[in-house]
């Protein structure tokens, strides 16, 4: 996925390069880049990439959509593209048509629950909802007496307390108090909150992997420019070894994320093997964000710490994305329980099944 070998990614990369260049975005203190970027993405049908034609979307494959998210990570795109894609995908699971405009999904944490009353009204609180403040609609997974359902909710009906994640993007608390959805339908058999969290987690994994690719790229470039003690710092073995480790973390993140994306794109159901792939991707990519981001900053010295430099656009977002749809510690506990429950002799067969 590192190269643009499909039309969806090519289109996206062109838009990102033209309208979301990280240096330009970083210099723009008024956020005047956001509206033109969103408009271009919408005109290209990218936010609704995962929504079938008959439900108002552009009907791209899951695989193409995942590759698009990886590209978005490479540009550290800070508009609700991933969120709108996930929302459209969630709504499409229940054959609900997607409206135009920005969306996000809730809940965004495995611990939060939205419930549905007998009369269909939704209640509950969801914390850490990415871009809730910017969304016109929410795609909501709710639980009621008759099981899970999927709802489209008008964002103006919710109470939103704004917050910022560690990457300075909106991460808000959304409270629904007996809100009547625009549409609500039952979730498909077997679809539950874990399914949604795994899908969101893989989306974030691909974004983290993309951000790490860029962190490696700019760190290598910087090390070849910066001179210290009369040598390019790239000639110092300690710096080379740090960058080799960053390359390893970046490669591991990309491998884990693309493998999980491939698993979901080809899965008949979210079985244990897909669970292993998706949970592992979120765990390993989060670890890579921590280790790799630290090395990128180390190589850049203090200048990467400044707001003027673009490194933080990648490093902080990669760190922030760790928290959405279940942190690595959450998924590690869940995966560990699954492994323990299946038993020692089933561990290798599960790993080798992928």
């Amino acid at each position: 996925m590192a190269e643009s070998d499909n039309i969806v990614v090519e289109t996206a990369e062109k838009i990102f390069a033209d309208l979301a260049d990280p240096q330009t975005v970083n210099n723009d203190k008024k956020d005047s880049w956001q509206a033109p970027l969103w408009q271009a993405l919408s005109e290209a049908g990218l936010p609704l990439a995962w929504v079938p034609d008959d439900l108002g979307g552009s009907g791209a494959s899951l695989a193409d959509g995942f590759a698009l998210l990886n590209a978005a990570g490479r540009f550290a795109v800070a508009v609700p593209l991933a969120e709108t894609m996930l929302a459209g995908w969630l709504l499409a699971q229940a054959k609900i048509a997607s409206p135009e405009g920005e969306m996000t999904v809730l809940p965004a944490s495995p611990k939060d629950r939205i419930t549905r009353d007998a009369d269909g009204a939704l209640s509950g609180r969801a914390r850490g909802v990415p871009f809730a403040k910017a969304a016109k609609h929410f795609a909501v997974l709710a639980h009621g007496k008759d099981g899970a359902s999927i709802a489209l909710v008008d964002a103006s009906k919710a109470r939103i307390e704004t917050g910022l994640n560690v990457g300075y993007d909106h991460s808000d608390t959304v409270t629904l108090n007996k809100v009547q959805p625009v549409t609500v339908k039952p979730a498909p058999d077997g679809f539950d909150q874990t399914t949604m969290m795994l899908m969101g987690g893989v989306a974030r994994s691909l974004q983290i992997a993309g951000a790490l690719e860029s962190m490696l790229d700019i760190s290598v470039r910087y090390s070849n420019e910066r001179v210290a003690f009369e040598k390019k710092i790239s000639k110092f073995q300690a710096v080379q070894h740090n960058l080799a480790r960053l390359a390893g973390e970046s490669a591991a993140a990309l491998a884990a994320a693309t493998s999980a994306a491939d698993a979901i794109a080809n899965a008949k159901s979210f079985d244990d093997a897909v669970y292993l792939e998706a949970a592992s991707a979120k765990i390993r990519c989060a670890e890579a964000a921590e280790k790799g981001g630290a090395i990128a900053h180390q190589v850049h010295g203090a200048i990467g710490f400044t707001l003027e430099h673009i490194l933080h656009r990648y490093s902080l977002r990669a760190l922030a994305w760790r928290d959405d749809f279940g942190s690595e510690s959450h998924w590690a506990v869940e995966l560990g329980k699954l492994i323990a429950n299946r038993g020692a002799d089933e561990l290798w067969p599960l790993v080798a099944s992928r």
Partner: protein
Amino acid sequence: MTAALRFDPIRLPEKCEQLRKEVRAFLAEEIAAGTFDPHKPNREDTDAPEFSRRVGAKGWLGMTWPKKYGGQERSFLERYVVTEEMRVANAPTRRFFVADRQSGPVLIKYAPEHIKMDILPRICRGEICFAIGMSEPNSGSDLFAAKTRATKTDGGYLINGTKIWTSSAHIADYMIAIFRTSQPTNENRRHGLTQFLVKMKQPGIQVNPIGQITGQYEFNEVVFTDFFVPDDHVLGEVDGAWKQATSELAYERSGPERFLETYYVLTELVRAVGPNPDTRSAEGIGRLVAQLHTMRRMSVSVAGMLQAGKEPVVEASIVKDIGTVWEQQLPHRVRDLAAFVEETATNRETLERQLDFAIKTAPKLTIQGGTTEVLRGIIARGLGLR
């Protein structure tokens, strides 16, 4: 963007899964028959001749080689499956593994036909054991520093010098070794090394065992004194061994043996923890499994690149670097978690014995296939830093 470090999500084809079942069934039979104990990694497994022959009889040695040499002409991915199942089961593979992975392919590429016809079928039948003579006292990963001389004489070469860290030399029938045939030149310091096929167990070779902190004897010092090697045992180009040696390294560096060496402690931890782990154990196991799964997916991806005829030197080095660090840390992480295992766990003793052995094994894992520092140098070169 920088070097495109792609690890495409290759999936093993269906026939690999069929083969996997066959290998598991074979290993289960061997375990039942008492050939080896999968829970005891700390055995002397260098000499398991009958097991080697049975693996050969299954057609699982020289799997990718031409049929005329006794091979099966199967895919690199099929070989991958056999390797990982053997490794995970703790099967006694040392006797045949080097010949199967490295020595055979070197012979296929560089040996004269009559030698290939003589030796390769015997490797495929699991009859012979190979050692690799690369390192020397004070050289190690720095192959340029090799000093052991091969001096031209009538009909061949006379060898004088010492190789060291030579795994399995005490049971090996052959060694593929690098000797100095001339001095490096100013233009090319890689010049002057030649690869030879050495027949062991002859006068002029003395093998001295080197004990390991695990209590095992696997490494050796091999001393050559006026040892004669005939001309037809020169492999490839005289003075040009450097590129021959490096081109094989992607195969040595990315396989499942590069992250599964201490894997057994993880299985045993899961067994000891039982079906209802506490939060700390669950998290620890979950992280380790996520890391293992990721490395394996990278390793399979590299296997796919090799099968496709690519030379993924940097990618293979990354797998080896991350894999080595992981398999070195694994026993220590398992030890952390094992502190909370109940006294009543039935496999507690096994786990403790395994941890003791794995902790002692860990320091050596950086060496095989290139030290971590050498690998990071290769990766740095791939990034355009040197």
